[in-house]
């Protein structure tokens, strides 16, 4: 239904979103509209949220959010409303549950494994330095080079 509305508006004179784009709510509630809108995906765009997309479809969807906020719905109820209509796909970030948990956990797991590897590669404090090239702790080839140049 919304789509038909959008199409009819596009084909008419000018370029206007359906229902003329509602006027923003008061500052506090409008901030909530924008915040919630950031987390909902525009149905016709490529991975842009409805708060960011200039597409007419996104304007209409953001107006829907405004309507729901004005009706006193909670954030979760608004997300639910969109998930019911468009599926899990409508959420800009996947829930921290089910298969999608992977994207949240895997990088942290990689970090932990990586830390073990890093500390395994490095010398533990207390063990003596390698006998091979003796490392002068204050050696600095950049400054050495400067000194060498100065001695010329």
């Amino acid at each position, binding site marked *: 239904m919304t789509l038909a509305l959008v199409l009819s508006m596009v084909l008419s004179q000018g370029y206007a979103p359906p229902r*003329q784009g509602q006027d923003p709510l008061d500052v506090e509630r409008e901030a909530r509209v924008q915040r919630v809108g950031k987390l909902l995906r525009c149905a016709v765009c490529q991975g842009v949220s409805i708060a960011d997309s200039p597409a007419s479809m996104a304007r209409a969807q953001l107006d829907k959010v405004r309507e729901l906020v004005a009706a006193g719905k909670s954030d979760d109820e608004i997300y639910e409303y969109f998930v019911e209509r468009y599926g899990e796909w409508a959420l800009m970030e996947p829930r921290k549950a089910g298969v999608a948990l*992977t994207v949240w956990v895997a990088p942290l797991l990689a970090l932990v494994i990586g830390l073990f590897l890093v500390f395994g590669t*490095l010398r533990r404090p207390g063990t003596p330095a390698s006998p091979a090239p003796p490392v002068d702790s204050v050696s600095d080839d950049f400054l050495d*080079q400067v000194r060498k140049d100065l001695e010329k």
Partner: protein
Amino acid sequence: MNSTLGYGLVLLGLGFAAFAAITGLVTGLTRRESALPWVRGAVYGYAASMLASNLVMVAALLQHDFSVKYVAQVGSRATPTIFTIVSLWSALEGSILFWGAVMGGYLFAFAFIYRKQHGRYMQLSLGVMAAVATFFAFLIAGPANPWVHLPNPPLDGPGPNPLLQNHVLMIIHPPMLYLGYVGMTIPFGIAAGALLRGELGDAWLVPLRKWTLVPWIFLSIGIILGSWWAYAVLGWGGYWAWDPVENASFMPWLTATAFMHSTMVLEKKKALKLWTIALALSSFVLTIVGTFMTRSGVFNSVHSFTQSDIGPTFLVFIAVLLVFCVLLLAARGPMLVAESSLGGIVSREGSILLNNLVFACITMVVLLGTLFPLISEGLFNEKLTVGEPYFNQMALPFMVAMLFLMGVGPMLPWGAADAKTLRDTALLPGAVGVVVVLVCLALGYRGAMPLATFGLAGFVTVVTLRELLLPARQRVEAQKESWGTALFVSASRARRRFGGYVVHLGIVVIAVAVAASSAYKTHATGTLKPGETMPVGNYQVRFDGLDRGREPHREWVGAKITLLTEDGREHAAEGPRFNYYERSTDPIGSPSVTGRFVRDVYVSLLAYDQATGTASFNMWLFPLVGAIWYWGIFLLALGTLIALFPDQRKRAAS
């Protein structure tokens, strides 16, 4: 005529590349070094054929020769000449043809510059690079052939993609990215050549590092220009959306940057070999994965992917590359064992290892987040989105950690740090960092992330400037030189380090600008009648009515606007517009961006109504955002040029 000539040149290039690959690899592995001139000659031949084929395509575009399929697809008599030339890379087939020319340029430069050096590695390395070139020449000749001859050519074409015609940045952004993507073939060839040869001498590490830096800077500039373009054209008030296309270019940048750091440990300590070489190989593999992601249409839908010709070809190539890299690393494992042990965590090498870990984690976040919707839909039949909020939450803490390491690393000595010296060196930068945070708090700025970024930026800046100026100060004091001379001489004595620190300053500027512009932006939205004003921050924007006009390739409807500052003064501003192209039904917006001192006033048109003369706007104030493109590009490019500048001593010797 053009089709036959252009296609013939592609086939010739394919022949040269295949010959160079086979000859280089076979004679290299059997160590018959007399064949090197043949390999080099074939590489030159490939470069010349590809360049010629591209020139024929440009000529065909300029002649509006619609019997060539690609010209019929993107050309149009109404398109301005400059965009006609640029449309060479405005669609898939043309951009892959252009890719071939860039590849030719790189291979030619590499083969020519080292024509008298590094003979032991050259055959194998050129062979590997030529093998990659063969793959792309095959793509151009087969699945993505732009030269198909149309027996019944149309009288006119639709013109290039309107999004590409909408801004002049689109002329330089794609070539920069291609120079970055394609250039990663060179370090890949250098590393793979060394592995195939079974030797990794110190001398061969220098080209490996320098030839990673070349595509790295192009990739950096390409990414920044791309974000600038998104900001100036797309009108949603942002510059980075963690879109698959952006992520594709970001991943090889991350691994190449990690490589640039770990190679210091490799060169200095003869350790971390396997990891460093793996980074060089994976930067290249990620450019191919990125090209696959952006070019196969896989992200529009899993289903359109199977219909595209190049998607499956790319998948096969990626699989071959992965197997090749893993086998090569496994077979040459003994060659990649560390020759010395590293110091503790509080040392230069410790900080570089952590830096590499953080870069690896960010790469993992980006790769997983980008590919997961495909995995989840393909394997679990569950369509979901992994978008901007996910990437911001997961990647930003790592980036703040990176900023911290950028300050700590340069302060620490190799090997082991002495606690007292460390306290002394950390005192001043640390204090400056704390002062910056306190000043920001006093000025009323809040938010953990931006304040942490500003504080760390202060810390890193002091460390970096001290490292840059200290050697010069020694000269000034000891030699009574002027500061200018001292700075120049000390910089030219250690260009790699000096350039690296200039790049660090560029990254600090970008970090501050990104944090400020995303945390402290002001947004306003609403519908105005002519003559009405709308406040955005401490500015007022007055709507002066609608306007319309016609250009050769488009029509536009715009809003006339005037900017009013707090003191009541008026500033003319170019109005935001909708551009209508013949080829697209939806208009393409052009926001109006007015730089005011350190902030941008950004106005984009959302809708208009001719009958009532009203218009709806989205308006933002973005503090500091311009620094990303102006200072970011300048400092990164300057630092890289300093680091890459040819060695004078070596030039004098040769």
